[in-house]
């Protein structure tokens, strides 16, 4: 593959050949691991959980990439898997929190405050707390739109929700965040 950066399409065809499969996969991991990590981390908050979810995501990519139909961009497909893995993780968390009479929001809120760099006076941290106060779908939509600047069309492919709903979700989320940042 040389040192020339190759496009996603070429990586996909290299992945489908046994001889170049692992090298192509290594390049996919290198290309997307950071973006996916931060997307995951913003949703699950705890580094160790984000690391687990990231690994699970790439294991699923490895197993499923041969069947990827290329209806969407590779990047969109990766985000879809990562988002689903996050939601599964959060669902498990919610179940265990319900069992221990604690709710997910305050659990993640506490985890944010436990970060070694946490500074309640900084707006970046306050924004993270505000995001955690949102319902799950609004949280995902806000993160994809605000941090990843993802177009609604791609978000619609990831979340399997109409663009109209996504726009409404983002609108409500942005309002709530503004309210949180200004009034708390």
């Amino acid at each position, binding site marked *: 593959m040389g040192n020339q950066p190759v496009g996603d399409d070429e990586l996909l065809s290299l992945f489908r050949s046994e001889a170049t499969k692992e090298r192509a996969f*290594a390049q996919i991991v290198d290309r997307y691991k*950071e973006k996916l990590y931060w997307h995951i981390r913003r949703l699950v908050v705890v580094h160790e959980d984000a690391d687990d979810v990231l690994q699970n995501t790439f294991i699923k990519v490895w197993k499923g990439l041969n069947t990827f139909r290329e209806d969407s961009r590779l990047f969109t497909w990766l985000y879809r898997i990562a988002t689903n893995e996050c939601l599964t993780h959060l669902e498990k968390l919610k179940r265990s929190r319900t069992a221990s009479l604690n709710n997910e929001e305050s659990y993640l809120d506490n985890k944010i405050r436990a970060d070694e760099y946490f500074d309640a006076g900084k707006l970046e941290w306050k924004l993270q707390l505000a995001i955690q106060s949102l319902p799950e779908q609004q949280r995902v939509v806000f993160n994809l739109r605000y941090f990843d600047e993802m177009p609604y069309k791609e978000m619609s492919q990831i979340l399997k929700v109409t*663009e109209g709903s996504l726009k*409404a979700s983002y*609108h409500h989320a942005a309002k709530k*965040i503004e309210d949180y*940042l200004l009034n708390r």
Partner: protein
Amino acid sequence: MNDENNISDYLKDSPEKQFRSLNPFTLPEDYFSGFNWNLMDKISDEGHIPDILQEISKRTPYSLPDGYFDDAGLKIQASISPKSERPVRSLKHSWRHLAAAAATLGIIVLAAVLFYSYHNKAGDFALQKIENVSTERLNGFLGNPDSVQNGQPVLSITKSDSKPVDFSQLFKKISDRDLKSFLDETGGNDDDFLMN
């Protein structure tokens, strides 16, 4: 007359057909249903991002272990290479592992057998030598000051033909060094055996 006919034909058509004949242009299927959202999207893109968010860096502030992304790639590579992803192992490789395990086990068993037989042999040899020592000398040895506890001999012995003496039990409390020096004095200087 012709115009009159056209108008009356037109009025007989369904409202949809009337609408189509007046507006022949095509539209995207969900244009009107999505119009509000598209409009809101434009508004939110231009002005509905709260002002306060404009002041905040988009950098995620969470802490991250040093060199995490360098290790993450390697960890992921390692995790996608489980046995299930590999071709089934050939019989040749299985036999090689089996043979290595069998050889290791054989060496362990052989070492245990040699160790056991060597020590038994040494013990038997010592007992054989004791058989040749007279009862008086043995009693003298067992009753010597080194073998006395609380003023009484630890052991004493009476050899008879009816009941064989169990020397291994008898010398249990005598140290190997004492027994060896006693046998050296009484049975010559054979240093080939070990007393354990």
